[in-house]
């Protein structure tokens, strides 16, 4: 077994274990830290799957931006009394039944499907994904790119307005 396959399996195990740990921790801050570990190992898997640009985007946006936002939200919504913010769990039976059934049926869907591929090497010859993605953003995917910019602007304004002291939700 080559070293790169061992790295691949280790990253997979870390991603799965840290995702399961979010389920069993009751401290929100530890949950956010476990999610950071999970997202970093997923970005490592992206690098191994020839998606370097996506891996860097994942690190920059998810573990840099979204998790910072979530930790900030934990800080704001906590009572800040010195004790850790503890989450109560409810509906364990319902959640376990639904999660187990999804996890049992999803692999059954693709267990008897054979996925054919036209490459067998780990990295194909002359492969440069960042270059290709940059060209595709400016040629084939121009319209989704621009629409994404408008969507980001809308989300920015919406979040800023709904969090500000704007008296839209005042008691009627």
């Amino acid at each position, binding site marked *: 077994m080559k070293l790169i396959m061992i790295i*691949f*399996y280790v990253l*997979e195990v870390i991603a*799965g274990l840290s*995702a*399961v740990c*979010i*389920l069993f921790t009751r401290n*929100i801050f530890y949950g*956010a830290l476990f*999610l950071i570990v*999970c997202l970093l190992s*997923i970005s490592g*898997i*992206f690098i*191994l*799957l*020839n*998606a370097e*640009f*996506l891996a860097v985007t994942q690190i920059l946006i*998810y573990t840099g931006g*979204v998790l910072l*936002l979530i930790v900030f*939200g*934990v800080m*704001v*919504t906590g009572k800040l009394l010195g004790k850790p913010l503890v*989450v109560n*769990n*409810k*509906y364990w039976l319902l*959640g*376990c039944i*639904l*999660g187990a059934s*999804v*996890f049992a049926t*999803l*692999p059954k869907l*693709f267990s008897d499907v054979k*996925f054919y*591929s*036209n*490459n067998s*090497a*780990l990295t*194909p010859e002359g*492969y440069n*994904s960042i270059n290709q*993605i940059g060209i*595709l953003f400016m040629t084939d995917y121009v319209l989704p790119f621009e629409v*994404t910019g408008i*969507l*980001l602007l809308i*989300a*920015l304004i919406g*979040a800023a307005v*709904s969090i500000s002291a704007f008296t839209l*939700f005042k008691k009627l």
Partner: protein
Amino acid sequence: MFPVEHILYLSALLFSVGLMIIIIKQNAIMVLLGIELLLNAANLNLVAFNQLQPQTFTGQMFALFVIVVAVCEAAVGLAIVLRVYKYYQTSILSEISELKE
């Protein structure tokens, strides 16, 4: 080439764990963490199927747009959570039930 089946099993695990977090956890911010996990499971599938056809970049482009939409969702969702916390003084989801009374 890495085995696609492994990544599919991993993303099935991530998807079911995210679903369980959304149902079980009682705090709104924890539910947002679960949604991020669901979106990452979808991204993992897209990149894995892109790897089968490395000359096309459809899966990777789709995953990039999924990431952008996830960022918008996290920002707006967290703003709503903070607003609800200001109004109800709690972020526990089952206590936010004004229509039930």
